[in-house]
């Protein structure tokens, strides 16, 4: 009887430990959604407390782009009028590349800014990040310094957001693109840099789509270093230096 009781106790402990392990396993994309839900819940409260927010118009420009989503709310309108011009003024400066690449760049920046926008949203309850995160696009990516290639490579290798086979597949595609550039600079490939920009943008978007949910900080870093990377690829001397390394 004592033996069976001991066995039963051991079994119970192991089962409980197993259940504890199961609960911790699933988190992936759910935490962000939970926080979004919380922020969404928190959003109505500030809107009802809008009389308290009038002091907020005095603060500087960063919050206003978020509030730009609140044309219906009366109290928040004064800051939006002041905030919209800076956002519009920054946007034209952001896309430095050619016209076809501008749209993918804007798309890629959106997820990154979503992730970056979560912290301010949690800190400032008056913000409503649920729908109009796009208004913050121009400011956040500029704040993060561009990556150097070694750091980018290391972080991509170490991230757990991408599986092993996916990483190998991505590396294959990066190698293919680099081979295209080698052939282009060697005169073996009859194309233009503008045409090579398309597969480059596509590859960056693939990487971003894989990272944006599970590793938003790395996705934001890649967005920030996107033009710097293209600057290396599109310059014959820099590319030769890079390829030799």
């Amino acid at each position, binding site marked *: 009887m004592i033996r069976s009781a001991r066995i039963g106790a051991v079994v119970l402990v192991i089962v409980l430990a*197993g259940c504890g392990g199961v609960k911790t396993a699933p988190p992936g994309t759910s935490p962000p959604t939970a926080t979004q839900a919380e922020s969404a819940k928190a959003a109505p409260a500030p809107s009802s407390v809008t009389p308290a927010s009038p002091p907020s118009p005095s603060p500087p420009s960063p919050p206003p782009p978020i509030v730009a989503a609140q044309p219906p709310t009366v109290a928040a309108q004064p800051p939006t009028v002041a905030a919209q011009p800076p956002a519009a003024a920054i946007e034209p400066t952001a896309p430095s590349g050619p016209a076809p690449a501008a749209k993918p760049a804007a798309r890629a920046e959106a997820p990154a800014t979503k992730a970056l926008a979560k912290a301010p949203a949690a800190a400032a309850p008056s913000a409503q990040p649920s729908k109009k995160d796009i208004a913050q696009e121009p400011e956040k990516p500029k704040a993060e310094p561009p990556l150097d290639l070694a750091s980018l490579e290391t972080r991509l290798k170490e991230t757990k957001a991408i599986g092993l086979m996916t990483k*190998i597949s991505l590396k294959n595609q990066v190698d293919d693109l680099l081979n295209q550039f080698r052939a282009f600079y060697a005169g073996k490939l009859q194309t233009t840099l503008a045409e090579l920009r398309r597969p480059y943008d596509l590859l960056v978007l693939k990487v971003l789509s894989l990272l944006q949910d599970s590793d938003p900080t790395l996705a934001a870093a890649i967005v920030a270093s996107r033009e710097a990377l293209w600057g290396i690829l599109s310059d014959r001397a820099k590319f030769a230096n890079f390829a030799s390394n």
Partner: protein
Amino acid sequence: MSKRVIGFVLMIGTVAFVAAPSLAADDAATRKDLTAVIALQGLPCGEVISVKTQGDNDHIATCKNGNRYHVFLNSTGRVVVEKQ
């Protein structure tokens, strides 16, 4: 004797109960990985719903849309996705 057998069966059941979630987690990670690989190749899949592992880096993936793909790492280090 019967108590020992009962204890042994309980232990086996407990181990299976505890190990199942970890295996399921690995399976989910593999499915997610293969889903990404197939999507990277531009092949229609949607989502991998089941995986049959044939070896290291060698899987048969069944997609939500019914397509089956052989995803493996070839001798040159390239990930190959073949529709079956």
